[in-house]
Structures are given as C-alpha cells and as structure tokens.
C-alpha cells in the first residue's frame, strides 16, 4: 500500500482493517471503506479496462461512477463500476473487455493501424458484402463486440428485486448541499420528503473538500427532520412523475407532488491527443481519490483547465501531498486573482493561455506536451514544450446534469456567460436547485436549495405567511449572489498538425474527434443524426463525459453556434442499472389444483398450461385413452373457470350474453354455451347449469376464466341488471369421471339415484359423494358417459382418492390433458383458441345450431352473425380423417392447386378409431362429407376425407345411455 497518502480527516477508509479480494486472480489488499477502484489504484493496478472499439487501456477518470472507464465484472456480474463499488472480502473481480489479458490485448491491433481502422459506420459498410458471409462475420464481430459477459446459467444471473412504491409530497433528487438544504426546508415546513442520491454518503461535491464535516451535519439534520433518505439509490429516469431509483435489491418507485432537481453538475474532460491514457483524470476524480480513500492519484501532476476549478484543484492536490508540476490554463487573462495569488505563494507555476496538445506514455501517462494558444484557441506548434508527470488532472468546466429535467419536459438553454446549458421551461411541479440551476458556489447552492424547498412546500399549501416572507427575502439575496459573470469555458485544444493523434470525444464508444469530422463530412450534420451514426453519447456514461465535447466540435465544424447545435435528451435509464432489477422478481406465478400432489405421486408428466401446472399424461397416453372408452378415467378439471350468476334477472342476463337461450332452461338442467363479441367472434365456451330459479352455474375454459369474469362484470356495469356475479373458480375443484363404468363407480359412493332415468344426460344434481358436497354435471366433453364433480377445494383430495379407490375394481385410470385432447377431437368438440381464432364465428365453426336468431331479444353478436348468415359462410370448420395414419402438423395448410386455402387446427391419431383424425378450416365449398382435401405439410401432400359429423358416437347413444 505504498501509494497511500498520509491520513486525512475526510477519508472513508479504516486503516486499521484490511480486506482482501482478487483481481484477475491476483490477491489485492484493501482497507475497509475502499472501493474496488481505489484499492486497485493504490495497489498499482492503474489499468482497469480496455476500451470498447480500439481496446486501449483505460484507468480511473471520474472516480464518481460517471464514466465508462472502470467497468469490471464482480463475481460474475458484468458492468460494475469499480470506482463506486465498495470492496467486500473475497469478491472475485475480473476485467471485461480484453483478450487474453488486460496487459496484452490482441484487439489493440485495431488501434495501432496507421489509419483509423474503424471509422463510424465501418461495420455496416464493410461487412455487408457478400451477403452469404454474414453469418461468419457475425460470429467474429459478436465475439469482438460488447463489453461484459453474462453468466451462462439462468440461476447465476437472477436478481431478487422487490418493488416498493412510495408516495411523497416532495422528492429531492440529489443529496449535495443544495438537495439537502431543499429537503430540510421542505420538511421543516411540514412536507413528507424523500431524498435520493447515488452516492453512499450525502454531501455530493462537499465530501472531498474542506466542508466535509458540514455535509455530515447537514445529513444528520435532514434525517432528524424526518426526511426519508435513499442512498445509494441512483435515480433512473423521470416517467410522467414517477421516479424509480435502484437501491441494492429494491427498486423504489417514488411518486411525489413536487420534485426538486438538485442533480448537480458534471466536470467535463478536455480533448487532446491521448486524453484517454490512464493517469489522465478529472480534477474531481483525483481529489476524490486523495481525499476520500487516501490514495495517491499520482506522484507528479499537471493540472489542465479552462476554469477556476482547475486552480482550486491544483491547490487541493498539492495540499494532499502531490507534487504539482504546473497548471496549464487555456485562459490568457481570466482567473481569480485570489487563487492565482495562492498558487504563486505555493510555488506552483501557472502557464496561462496554454493548452495540452498531447499526453504521452504507453500504458500510463509519462508526460504532456503543451503549447501556447492563439486567440482562436489553436496551439502554436513553435511553442510546444514537454512537462514530465504521471497525473494529468483535467477540468474542462462543468455541465449541469439536466438529463432528468429534460426527460420531464424541460428545455436546455445555452448560457454564454457560464458556458453551459442551463435548464429552461421547467414544468411547474419541478424546482431546480444548486449547480444544475447554475447556482454553483457553495453558499449560494445552499440558499438555492432552501428557496426550492420552500417553494415546493408552500405550493402544496404548507407553511405560513412568515415562511412566505422569508422565501421572498431568500430569493432576493440569491439573485444578488448569482449575478455577475462566471468563468467562460474554452475546452477544446488540439494540435492541428498531429494527424495520427487520437483525441477522444467519447470514451464509451471510442469516438474520436476525427470520427465526428468524418461523420459530419458524410452529411450527418445535425446532432441527432450524429448521435445515431457515431453512437456518441449513447454509451454507459449517457453523455455525461461527451455531450458538451461533441456539441462544441459540431459547432466548430459546421459553423453553427452552440445554441443552434442544441442538445439531445438522454433516454432513461440515466444511471446504469442491471436489466434484472427492472424485470423484477424472477418469479412465474404457478397455479396448482387442490390435488396437485396426487398428480405427482401418480407419475403425471406435469407441464405448464397457461398459468396452471397440469398433468399432460401419466405415462401412457394410449392406455389412458382406452381406459375412458372401456372402463373409466378420471381427470382433474379444477382449472375450469366457475361463476355463479344469480338474481331475478340472471336468465335475462345470460340470454343477452349468449346466442342461445337460458331463461327457459329448467332448474337442474345443463346447456352448452358459446360466448362471442359484437363482431360475432367466438371468445370462450362452457356449460351452464341452472341451479334453481334464480341462479346459474357457469363454467368457462381454463385460460378464459379471468377474461369471462371481466366480460360479464363489464356488461353488468353497462346494463345494470339485478344480477350478482360470484367467481368461485379458486374455491372449487372439479373432476371429470368418464367411461362406460363411471355410473357404477359413482353409484357406490353416493346415495343419489344415478340411474339413467333419474340422472339423465345434461342433468345437474347436488348430492354428497363420500360425504363431500358435490355439484354433479352429467356432460360429455370426452364423449363417453361421464360426470363432472365440482366440490370445495379443501375436500377435493378425499374425493379424488375415493373415486380412484372405488374405481380400482372397474379398471379406472387417471388421465391427462393429451388423452383428453384425443377424446374430445373424436367428438369434434372445439377448443377455443386452438380450433378457433380471432375471426371465427359459431356459424362457420360448425355450430350453427347454437345461434337462436328466433330469440326475441337482442344478444351480443346478433347483428354480426345475422350478416354472416345473410352473406353465407365463407369458410367452415370441418373434421377430416386420414386412412394411412399420417398425422399432419397442426397449422399445416389445406391447399387447392398448390395454393393455401385453409389450415389444420387439430390432428391426432385415435387409438380407438385406428386412424388419423383432425379438424381444419376449409372454404365452404369443400365442407361436404366425402370431399377429399389436400393437406400440404412440410413438403408432403396428404389426402384427407372430409367428415362433418363427430368421428365417435355421432348419434350420442353412448353419451345418453
């Protein structure tokens, strides 16, 4: 730890406790409180990453999570910023974008070719021909592109994120002095305030400076005032008033009535050849390293600046124990006399009217070349001279962090006096405070915050007349303090003669100033186009480090003023966030029936069916199918939607919803119903049993349960009938006991007379079965004698077990979804969504009998169906058989003369009928018994015979017997 400075009172590290972790397999020793980046820098590891395109070595630049330079992989999670991520014992940190190693990266070749190897658009232009080679190109390029690697296994990249919603009166984004002052004032006036900041500690820019103690005091006082502080919690964006912030495993979604943006400003880098070399750091970055972590950013520094910030920084660095070899100030005349005096007193030479034209060194800075600048800011080649150093601390002025404000609808206005874009046209529920508003100096930032906090609270009706008066006074004094000229920013200095130099405008995407020149020459001469073509501002820094630079250069190249060039809006997320956090908890709700455990025990192949987990089969589809035909079968149909519709107008209500009648259904009888909409399209189907005069038991498809409930309640809201709707889907289980011996089995378990005379087909009866109260529906979805038993969920397991036990003597078998599909297909019972689509109506879907046009009253879909009846069916759903046993793929085309005219919706081999059967949509002209249709299936042409009556038991003798 030779690179540590003597202890200072502001440092976050605890030198008494060391922690070890590894970087690329090597052991690194850190202090408790270090970040990965500070510890690596202290250990001598100055190169942390390789750049995106040219694989150039990169090291710490901002030390504040604002740039792309320190992205590493931590324990398999890529894209972590080393400079802000706290060190934890034992973590495995690896570099991301270099092969085979950080020290030697073969892809660096792209950088070392004489000419720029990859100008903007290079990949699009180069790898487009020949087309057939694209798959090969793609493989290589994919490998070379991107930064990190995701863990291969799903389990290794899961996040467990909780969403938390928070309502507040006032949300303050940014915990610097302005943000804290705003939060404090608003809370004092009685507002419920939330403050979020991306750093672990409140204080922002104060933390690394002389005022660190007052930052701590202020942070304590806002907590005491009841402000909820979220930190570190980076605000991700502004979404119509909702501001999400990521904090560890929680995604806070904060909605406040008033917002205060105290997002501060971002120090800008300078542009010169080699400005990306490790050792070139923002002034604030170097100060943070020294001050917060006691890490020596370098031995000998050159400070290059365009504003007074650099002068302050030079003093701070020297005080921290770093030798300052000189200050290179682009301004010839401006500059605070006070600071210049202090520098002179400290023996630091200031080169005024001078700029850095080049930083040199292979993997790290060894020195800079500086030159005098003319009036235009161009370096004079004759004046070039070198200064040795291993740290270049740069400050190209600051850029207010306006991104969130722009997302909220504000505009940015170029302010010539301060040389930056300031927010303008800010929506009325938002206040700006501190540096983002141009109120940079510390005392004025605090006042700016207090004004914003008071304005927010008072606009919510809080506070008194006195508070109003105080606000007026504060406003007036703030105005006085912020008047007057601010130092101008003149950030770009480039040696016009050095053509091979790489001056990086954008570090994330490796865009050089020359790339921007090329792009503008090619015609991409508006900022929005330039952004998309070169991808400048679109990398991990989201324009923090590069937007101003690209605007300046565009202005220079095109002659447009900076104001005319304008600003682009950074899209959310404003701060880097793992996709997993946004995806929420990796959970998929699974619905399980009350007897789910039994399916497992019986060897069921459990699969997803919508949200449900259901038994596809129990290992033998054929045997299960045959058991239903020959003995008995039992299937769990608890997934069906179940609604009780009751009230004096329940019958009338159903009459309006369904195309057939229900008011004349006798209590204890069942009728099939198809639901449709006013376009006549089938949306769901099921059976309806009239329980008594005033109530009906409606079943729906499994997947349609929610939609039907919502459809019913919507029409009920519209029609306002005297009807109650109760959804009992979750509370009741249901089993279908089917097969020729089902009556015998059931008779043994209930006192009810199950004879055909007293319990006929389409009867619904209530009785106890093995003591379990059941609603028994004698229906025949699978085509054999059968009973659907609906019972309370908690008793379902007992019923299921008893049925199987009693059925054992009758060769009962549980059967799954697949056998059920075969059985129902034999009966041509449609599956809504499988055999029908969004265009199917009951007249064409082989159910004209269900539409009762003679019904007096209106029903949903009547008019559309009348139009279909008038026009005549265009297509029809029919059955088909294939003698040779070929089973065409579901979805295969029905063709006439090689042209597709229809499609197969269901197809199976029926073990009972010993042939292939299926259903298909065909033109009405082909929908005649005995017609032969041709199915084209993956190159095969298959002949099939049309059949319109059910394949099995067409006269329902078995069903009614």
């Amino acid at each position, binding site marked *: 730890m030779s690179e540590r400075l003597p202890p200072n009172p502001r440092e976050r590290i605890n030198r008494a406790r060391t922690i070890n972790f590894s970087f690329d397999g090597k052991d690194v020793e850190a202090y408790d409180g270090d970040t990965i980046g500070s510890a690596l820098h202290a250990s001598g590891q100055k190169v942390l990453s390789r750049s995106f395109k040219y694989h150039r070595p990169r090291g710490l630049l901002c030390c504040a999570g604002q740039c792309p330079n320190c992205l590493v992989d931590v324990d398999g999670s890529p894209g972590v910023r080393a400079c802000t991520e706290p060190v934890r014992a034992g973590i495995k940190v690896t570099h991301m974008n270099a092969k085979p190693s950080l020290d030697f990266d073969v892809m660096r070749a792209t950088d070392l070719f004489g000419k720029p190897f990859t100008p903007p658009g290079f990949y699009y232009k180069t790898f487009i021909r020949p087309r057939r080679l694209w798959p090969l190109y793609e493989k290589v390029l994919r490998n070379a592109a991107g930064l990190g690697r995701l863990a291969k296994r799903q389990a290794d990249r899961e996040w467990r994120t909780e969403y938390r*919603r928070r309502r507040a009166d006032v949300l303050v984004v940014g915990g610097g002095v302005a943000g804290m002052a705003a939060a404090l004032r608003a809370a004092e006036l009685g507002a419920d305030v939330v403050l979020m900041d991306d750093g672990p500690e409140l204080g922002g820019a104060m933390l690394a400076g002389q005022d660190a103690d007052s930052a701590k005091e202020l942070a304590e006082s806002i907590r005491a005032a009841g402000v909820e502080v979220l930190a570190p919690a980076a605000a991700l964006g502004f*979404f*119509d*008033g*909702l501001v999400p912030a990521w904090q560890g495993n929680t995604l806070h*979604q904060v*909605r406040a009535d008033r917002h205060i943006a105290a997002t501060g400003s971002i120090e800008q880098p300078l542009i010169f050849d080699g400005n990306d070399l490790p050792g070139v750091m923002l002034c604030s970055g170097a100060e943070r390293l020294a001050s917060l972590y006691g890490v020596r950013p370098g031995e000998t520094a050159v400070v290059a600046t365009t504003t007074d910030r650099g002068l302050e920084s030079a003093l701070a660095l020297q005080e921290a124990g770093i030798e300052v070899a000189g200050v290179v100030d682009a301004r010839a005349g401006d500059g605070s006399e006070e600071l210049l005096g202090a520098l002179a007193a400290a023996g630091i030479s200031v080169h005024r009217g001078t700029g850095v034209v080049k930083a040199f060194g292979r993997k790290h800075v060894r020195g800079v070349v500086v030159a005098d600048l003319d009036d235009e800011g161009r370096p004079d080649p004759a004046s070039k001279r070198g200064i040795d150093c291993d740290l270049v601390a740069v400050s190209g002025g600051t850029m207010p962090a306006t991104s969130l404000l722009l997302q909220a609808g504000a505009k940015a206005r170029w302010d010539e006096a301060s040389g930056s874009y300031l927010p303008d046209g800010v929506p009325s529920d938002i206040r700006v405070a501190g540096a983002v508003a141009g109120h940079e100096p510390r005392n004025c930032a605090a006042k700016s915050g207090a004004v914003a906090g008071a304005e927010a609270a008072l606009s919510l009706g809080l506070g008194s007349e006195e508070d109003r008066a105080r606000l007026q006074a504060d406003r007036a004094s703030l105005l006085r303090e912020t008047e007057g000229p601010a130092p101008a920013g003149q950030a770009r200095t480039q040696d016009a003669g050095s053509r091979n130099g790489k001056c990086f405008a954008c570090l994330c995407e490796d865009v050089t100033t020359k790339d921007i020149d090329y792009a503008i020459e090619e015609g991409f001469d508006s900022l929005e186009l330039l952004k998309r073509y070169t991808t400048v501002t679109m990398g991990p820094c989201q324009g923090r480090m590069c937007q101003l630079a690209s605007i300046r250069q565009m202005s220079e190249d095109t002659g447009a003023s900076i104001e005319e060039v304008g600003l682009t809006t950074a899209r959310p997320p404003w701060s880097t966030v793992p996709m997993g956090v946004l995806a929420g908890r990796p959970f998929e709700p699974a619905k399980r029936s009350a007897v789910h455990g039994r399916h497992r025990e019986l060897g069921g192949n459990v699969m997803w069916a919508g949200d449900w987990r259901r038994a596809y089969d129990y290992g033998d589809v054929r045997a299960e199918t045959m058991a239903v035909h020959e003995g008995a079968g039992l299937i769990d149909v608890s997934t069906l939607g179940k609604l009780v519709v009751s009230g004096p107008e329940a019958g009338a209500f159903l009459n309006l919803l369904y195309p057939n009648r229900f008011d004349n259904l006798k209590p204890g009888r069942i009728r099939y119903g198809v639901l449709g*909409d*006013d*376009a006549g399209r089938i949306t769901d189907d099921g059976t309806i049993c009239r329980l008594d005069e005033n109530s009906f038991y409606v079943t729906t498809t499994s997947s349609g349960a929610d939609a039907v*409930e*919502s459809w019913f*309640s*919507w029409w009920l*809201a*519209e029609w*306002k009938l005297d009807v109650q709707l109760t959804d009992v889907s979750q509370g009741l289980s249901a089993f279908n006991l089917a097969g020729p011996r089902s009556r015998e089995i059931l008779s043994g378990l209930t006192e009810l007379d199950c004879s055909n005379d007293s319990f006929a087909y389409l009867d619904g009866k209530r009785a106890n079965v093995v003591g379990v109260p059941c609603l028994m529906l004698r229906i025949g979805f699978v085509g054999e004698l059968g009973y659907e038993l609906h019972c309370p969920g908690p008793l379902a397991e007992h019923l299921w077990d008893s049925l199987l036990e009693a059925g054992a003597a009758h060769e009962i078998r549980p059967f799954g979804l697949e056998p059920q599909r075969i059985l129902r297909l034999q009966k041509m019972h449609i599956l809504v969504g499988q055999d029908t689509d969004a265009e199917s109506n009951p007249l064409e879907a082989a159910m004209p009998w269900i539409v009762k046009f003679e019904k007096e009253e209106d029903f949903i879909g009547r*008019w*559309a169906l*009348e*139009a279909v009846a008038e026009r005549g069916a265009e297509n029809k759903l029919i059955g088909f058989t294939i003698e040779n046993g070929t089973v065409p793929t579901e979805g295969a085309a029905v063709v006439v003369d090689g042209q597709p005219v229809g499609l197969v919706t269901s197809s199976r081999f029926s073990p009972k009928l010993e042939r292939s059967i299926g259903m298909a949509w065909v033109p009405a002209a082909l929908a005649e018994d005995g017609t032969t249709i041709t199915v084209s299936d993956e190159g095969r042409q298959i002949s099939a015979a049309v059949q319109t009556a059910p394949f099995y038991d067409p006269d329902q003798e078995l069903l009614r017997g």
Partner: protein
Amino acid sequence: MSFLLTCPNCGEREVTDFAFGGEVVPRPSSKPSERELNTYNYFRRNVAGLQREWWNHRSGCRAWFLAERDTTTNEVRWVALPGA
C-alpha cells in the same frame, strides 16, 4: 405510461393496478346498418384530449368504472361508477 387513477370504491392508486377498457363506445340500441356495426366494432375516435373511457380496478375491487382522461397529459378529470 404512469399516472394515478382514482377508483370510485377504493381511492387513488397507481395506474398499474387497473385494466384499461378502451374509450366508451355506446352499443347501438337497435339493429345497426353494416357500416354502423363496423364503426362500432372497429373504429375508435382516438382523440388527443379529453376522452371518456372504461377502467377496471383489476388488482383491487374489480369494479368497472368510467373516467375522463386527457390523453395528452394523462390527467384524469372525473371518475364514476356507471349510472352513479
């Protein structure tokens, strides 16, 4: 899209609590012409401005209600249970 909506039964909630039922299109009271029927089934006014629409408090009381919302600002001006 993100805004607050007030359920007439439950009060103010995040819009993600609700299901959108589309703009209110009255169902013809007697047999419409084919053009009228198609207009009712398939055409929506899709105004930029104040619109009356159906909402369902799906993750709450499950009631359907009416709301008037400015489609350009998502400001909800009025909510009520139908007929209330």
